C-alpha cells in the first residue's frame, strides 16, 4: 500500500476507528504543564499547538503559535507504564483449612493502541520485549499488554535539546516495529498527515479510514523534515568503545565527581523507558488476603542492594556506576543491545541536570589522556 495523506479529520477518524475496533487508545495529552500519555478520544485531546523546551533539569511547554499535533517531544512518562505498570498485583493468597490458596488475578484482555509513539520509544519497547518475553521466563502482565498491541508511530519533525536518538540509531525516523507511521507536514496552508503502514493490520486500518495517495512532493517534504530533525539534533552519544570504557574503569574519579551532584532520587530510572527493576511486597487486606504486589524499584535506592540488611552499594558513586554501566555496557551482555535509546528523559528529569552523554565524554577524555 502506498502512503496516503489525511487531514486532521482523518486522524480523528483513525482514533475513532481504533476505539470502535475494541482498542483502548492511549496517546499524548497535556496534564500539569507536561505532555503525558493517557486515554484519548480525538485529536483535540492531543497537545495541540504545543512545543516543549527541554534542558538538563528543565522542562516547560511552549506555545508554538500553530495547530501542530506533534510539535513537541517526550514528557516525563513513557509507554512503559502501560506494559510494565508501576504497581502490579501478581498473586492473591489466603489461608484455607491450613493450606495457602493461591490465585492469579486476571490480566488485561482488551488490547491497547499506542497513538503517537516515537522511534526511540518503539526501540524501548523492543528492548523491554527482550527482558520480559525473550529471556527464558515470560512476564504475564507484560505479555498481556503486548498481545495485539497496535502501534501508531510518529516520525519526529522536531527534536528537544536533550534528544540524542540519532546517535543511538533509534530515531528520529521510525524504521520498523510499528503498524502505522504518521509524519506531520506543517504547511502555510492546511497541515497534512502522511500515513504509511508496515503491517497488514495497519494497512486495513488506513483503508478503513480513507485518504488520498501521497504526492511525490509530500513524500519528499516528509523525508526532509525528518532528516533536518536528525541534522539539527544537538546532543549525541559516542558509543564507540563504550563497553570497555565502563567495564575497565570502575575506579574512575568521574564516578566520585558525578556522585557529588547525584541526589540518588531515582528520577532517571522512573523516567527511563527501558529501566525494568522491581520489588515485590505483601499487602494484607482486612479480609486476610495477602496481595503480592510488584512495584517499580530503582538501583539508586539504598535498599536495592541490601543483603542481610546491609547495602552492597552504599556510596552514591557505586549506585550511579551501577545504573550507567548496566544501561550502556552490561545490558549488551544480558540482552544483546544497549539499554539506552537516546530519549533524553534522564537528562531532562534529573533535578540537578546530570547528563549521561556528558558523563561519557568526560570519562573518555580523561581515560585517553
Amino acid at each position, binding site marked *: 500500500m502506498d502512503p496516503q495523506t489525511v487531514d486532521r479529520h482523518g486522524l480523528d477518524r483513525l482514533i475513532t476507528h481504533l476505539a470502535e475496533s475494541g482498542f483502548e487508545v492511549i496517546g499524548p495529552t497535556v496534564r500539569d504543564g507536561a505532555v503525558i500519555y493517557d486515554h484519548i478520544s480525538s485529536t483535540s485531546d492531543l497537545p495541540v499547538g504545543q512545543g516543549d523546551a527541554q534542558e538538563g533539569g528543565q522542562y516547560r511547554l511552549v506555545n508554538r503559535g500553530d495547530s501542530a499535533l506533534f510539535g513537541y517531544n517526550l514528557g516525563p512518562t513513557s509507554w512503559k507504564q502501560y506494559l510494565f505498570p508501576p504497581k502490579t498485583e501478581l*498473586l492473591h493468597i489466603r489461608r484455607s483449612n491450613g*493450606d*495457602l490458596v493461591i490465585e492469579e488475578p486476571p490480566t488485561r484482555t482488551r488490547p491497547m493502541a499506542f497513538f503517537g509513539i516515537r522511534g526511540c520509544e518503539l526501540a524501548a519497547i523492543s528492548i523491554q520485549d527482550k527482558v520480559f518475553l525473550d529471556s527464558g*521466563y515470560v512476564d*504475564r502482565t507484560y505479555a498481556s499488554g503486548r498481545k495485539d498491541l497496535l502501534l501508531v508511530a510518529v516520525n519526529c519533525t522536531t527534536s528537544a535539546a536533550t534528544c540524542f536518538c540519532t546517535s543511538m540509531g533509534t530515531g528520529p525516523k521510525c524504521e520498523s516495529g510499528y503498524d502505522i507511521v504518521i509524519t506531520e507536514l506543517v504547511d502555510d496552508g492546511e497541515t497534512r498527515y502522511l500515513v504509511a503502514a508496515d503491517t497488514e493490520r495497519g494497512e486495513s486500518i488506513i483503508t478503513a479510514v480513507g485518504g488520498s495517495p501521497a504526492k511525490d512532493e509530500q513524500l519528499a517534504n516528509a523525508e526532509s523534515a525528518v532528516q533536518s530533525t536528525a541534522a539539527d539534533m544537538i546532543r549525541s552519544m559516542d558509543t564507540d568503545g563504550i563497553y570497555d570504557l565502563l567495564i575497565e574503569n570502575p575506579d574512575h574519579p568521574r564516578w566520585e565527581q558525578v556522585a557529588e551532584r547525584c541526589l540518588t532520587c531515582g528520577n532517571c530510572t522512573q523516567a527511563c523507558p527501558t529501566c525494568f527493576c522491581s*520489588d*515485590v511486597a505483601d499487602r494484607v487486606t482486612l479480609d486476610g488476603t495477602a496481595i503480592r504486589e510488584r512495584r517499580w524499584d530503582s538501583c539508586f535506592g539504598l535498599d536495592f542492594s541490601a543483603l542481610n540488611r546491609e547495602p552492597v552499594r*552504599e*556510596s552514591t558513586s557505586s549506585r550511579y556506576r551501577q545504573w550507567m554501566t548496566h544501561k550502556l555496557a552490561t545490558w549488551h551482555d*544480558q540482552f544483546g543491545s544497549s539499554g539506552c535509546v537516546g530519549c533524553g528523559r534522564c537528562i531532562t528529569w534529573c533535578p540537578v541536570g546530570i547528563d549521561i552523554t556528558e558523563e561519557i565524554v568526560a570519562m573518555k577524555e580523561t581515560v585517553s589522556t
Partner: protein
Amino acid sequence: MTTVSAPVVEPMGLHSLKVVSNASESPDTSTIVLDSPGITFHAGQFMMLYAFGVGEAPISVSGNPHSPGTLVHTIRRVGPVTDALCGLRPGDSLGVRGPYGDSWPAGEQGDDLLIVAGGLGMAPLRPAVFEAMANRSRYRNVSLIYGARTPADLLFKDDLVGWMSTSSIDVAVTVDRATSDWWGHVGLVTNEFSRVDFRPESTTALVCGPEVMMRVVARSLRDLGVPASSTWLSLERNMKCAIGFCGHCQFGSDFLCKDGPVLSYDRLAWRLGVDEL
C-alpha cells in the same frame, strides 16, 4: 518485534507445601523439612520460600538430591521473612517456587574434589557432599573443610560425625573462636588446606561462605595452583524474583539468580576485586 500469542502462567506463582519438621541447628539457624512430592533439584540450587503475609526469601536446598519427596532448607534468621520461616511448625503451610539457579559442577573424572564451606555456606554445599558420596568412584580424593564462628555455630553436626567416621571423605573443621568444650582447630579455613589431600592441578573446588572468605579461599587456591576455572563459588545477592526480572541480584553482567549462583572464579576474579559492585 516480538509477537505474543499463548496465554501465560504467572512466573512468580507459588505452590502451597506443608512443613514436616523444624529443628534448631544453632542459636540463629533452623532446618525445616517440607513435604514436596514431585519436586527435584540439583545440588547448589535454591528455592523461593514464601511466609504468608510477610514475603519471600531465596533459600538454598540443603537436603539430599537423591531423597525425593521432601525438600530440606537451612535458614538463618536475618530479617522478617527468615524469622517467619524459622518460626513455622510441623503442619504449617508455606509457599514455594523453584528450584532456581545453576548447580555445583561434578568436575572431571579422577579429579580431587575439595569442598570449602564457611558458616551458613555449608547449607548449599551439603547436597554436594551427598552427591559426591553417591558418586564416590568418580573422584580420587574427596575433602570437606568447614569453618564456623564458634563451635555452637557448626551446622549439621550429626552429618559431620558420620562423615568423619568414614574413609570416603577427609573432613577438617575449624572455628574462629573456640569455647572451653572445643578440642579442634582454630583459625581460617585456608589453614586447613595442608590437612587434606588434593592435587591442585587436578582439583575441582566448591566454595561457599561469606564473600570475604570466598575471596580469600579462591585466591589461596589459585596461588596453590588450582586453575581458576576449576574453583566454583556460590554468590549471594538479594534475589527478589529469581527469574531475571527484578534486577536486584546483578553482579556485573550476571543475574546471579539465573546465570548463577554458582560461577567459576575465572569469571568472577576481577568483579570480586571491585568494591560495592
